[in-house]
């Protein structure tokens, strides 16, 4: 490796896309398959430069369907693998995100959200894919989705995403937005020793006793191709041996419920939020991604003006932090949800707020909400 560092310890000035790529490499990602798309292309470009220097694989596939398929293949062959895309590519990937969920392939998918639907606004930010992240593939399943709101978090949460993907054998999504991805900021990269790395559980059973989908605490230990286990995996409903059981209601119930439960029952361990000035907050702003940065500024300004405002920022979008919303809603007069869409996470907030009034602030087709815009809303409901 000729001294090439996998972890670029130090203080850097970099873009969100580059920070994401560096986070992946620091997390141990050694396989990237992707397809060019604005505003995520710089992730692929940076990986193309860095990956061969650290002994990893970069390949540009023929489309996003192939990209995610190759990522799942590489994951089963033993590498930490990821792809990065934006809305149109994310749509193409959905069927195989379901395959990754069904076959419990650890992998990371970065979606740098732009304006949709369809080709939409390639160079402008959006938050229109956050429900697609949860529900995009058919059938019942769970994923984990994280929402970075700074360039530092593009680095940190990409590492986090790999750790969660490996721990729970689940596709993990980094739902970034165009601003966070293209913005340049200061990033502090810790030493390799300071970065927590989680690797998939390996089987402790001998190969002739191995059952590839027999859970140990809801998550099955994972053998990889070429290790002598000679196992089968399929997107069909399968038993603990990995064998198709397409007519068995018992197998279907057991498998699909477990795929959901391994995330739902661990939600408290998975979920992370940032809470600012929430203890006595009467007006709660619920915001994520780049919008949370403006929201924090507006909450501070509101406090200066004597309004008890606070910020609840979900770092984990899925599983949804409903306990945190419910707790904040207890004391709040109103919850304000600024989002760069026509109303997506706001529905989850309404569900969790159990009667506390929730007001949505949609914004489409331009820069994210400004602090003054959000402040105006806070003042309207905070009087």
């Amino acid at each position, binding site marked *: 490796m000729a001294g090439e560092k996998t972890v670029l310890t130090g203080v850097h000035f970099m873009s969100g896309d580059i920070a994401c790529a560096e986070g992946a490499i620091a997390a141990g990602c050694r396989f990237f398959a992707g397809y060019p798309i604005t505003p995520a292309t710089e992730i692929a470009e940076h990986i193309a430069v860095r990956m061969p220097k650290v002994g990893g694989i970069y390949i540009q596939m023929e489309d996003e369907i192939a990209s995610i398929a190759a*990522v799942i293949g*590489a994951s089963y062959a033993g590498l930490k693998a990821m792809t990065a895309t934006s809305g149109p590519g994310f749509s193409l990937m959905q069927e195989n995100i379901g395959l990754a969920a069904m076959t419990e392939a650890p992998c990371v998918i970065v979606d740098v959200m732009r304006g949709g639907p369809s080709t939409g606004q390639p160079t402008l930010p959006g938050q229109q894919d956050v429900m697609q992240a949860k529900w995009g593939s058919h059938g019942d399943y769970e994923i984990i989705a994280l929402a970075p709101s700074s360039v530092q978090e593009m680095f940190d949460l990409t590492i986090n995403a790999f750790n969660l993907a490996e721990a729970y054998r689940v596709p993990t999504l980094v739902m970034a937005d165009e601003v966070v991805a293209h913005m340049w900021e200061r990033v502090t990269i810790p030493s390799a020793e300071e970065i927590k790395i989680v690797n998939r559980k390996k089987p402790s059973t001998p190969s002739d006793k191995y059952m590839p989908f027999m859970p140990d605490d809801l998550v099955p230990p994972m053998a990889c191709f070429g290790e002598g286990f000679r196992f089968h995996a399929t997107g069909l409903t399968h038993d603990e041996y990995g064998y198709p059981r397409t007519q068995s209601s018992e197998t279907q119930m057991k498998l699909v419920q477990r795929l959901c439960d391994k995330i739902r029952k661990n939600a408290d361990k998975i979920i992370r939020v940032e809470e600012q000035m929430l203890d006595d907050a009467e007006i709660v702003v619920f915001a994520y991604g780049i919008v949370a940065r403006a929201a924090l500024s507006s909450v501070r300004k509101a406090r200066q003006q004597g309004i008890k405002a606070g910020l609840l920022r979900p770092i984990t979008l899925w599983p949804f932090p409903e306990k945190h919303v419910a707790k904040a809603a207890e004391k709040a007069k109103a919850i304000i949800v600024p989002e760069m869409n026509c109303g997506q996470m706001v529905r989850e907030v309404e569900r969790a707020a159990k009667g506390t009034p929730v007001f949505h602030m949609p914004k489409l087709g331009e820069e994210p909400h400004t602090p003054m815009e959000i402040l105006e809303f806070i003042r309207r409901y905070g009087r």
Partner: protein
Amino acid sequence: MTETVEQHPLSKYLRAAMMPHIWCAGCGNGIILNAFVHALDELQINLDKLVVVSGIGCIGRAAGYINVDSFHTTHGRPIAFATGVKLANSELEVVVISGDGDLFAIGGNHFIHAARRNIGIKVICANNFNYGMTGGQVGPTTPLDAFTTTTPYGNIEHPFNLVHLAAAAGATYVARWTTLHVRMLTMSIKKLLQRKGFSFIEVISPCPEIYGRHNKMRTGLEMMEWFKKASVISNFSDPAKAEITPERIVIGEFVDIQKPTYEELLHNKMAQIMKGEGE
């Protein structure tokens, strides 16, 4: 002297727990599977380093029947999945076994690009001229005028010539056989497994229950009789002229060349980069 054997000598290659298989009487998929495991046995392939990948369709179940690391992917995507496997661990022998609809309709793009890149994966396509599993619809290889459940008045789409397509896209080994030509097919699969680059065998396979019955070949035997009557071996002839018509099925080996594989070029490039060259 007679010897009693407890099990078939090739049974170690199959997963008994997955039997009985799902294939119809008269289907050619069992013959292809048989030829494949014979080739594995004759070459004494290291089964711990073999990965079989399939897509969706009748032959797609083969991955589950072969007792090696195997993955049954989504419809059309086995080649893209296999590309990830092969690049992540180039020591693995990665074989895709799938059908004509899976590989050349929904998955056609992956086929031509894997061939173009010369990824060292091996593709065996069971061509039964229709979508068997869903009940016999028209596909990219259905001959002109053939009847299927979605061409009830006869097919008006021109079919792909798979060996011509594979050769044009850059495959380094290309052959076509029918399930009647079991020994040639087994010999050819052995070659496929010994080649380094992207390699492809098309196997014309009978589907009497779903396809043949609409086209005056109601039994497997009648379909095999067509293969017997019409097949012409024409090794290394122009694959563009390798036709499949009621009168003539051109079979044989069409391409057997060498060129650097994607993995070789990649690893050479990576070695240079790691040494600090090439910047």
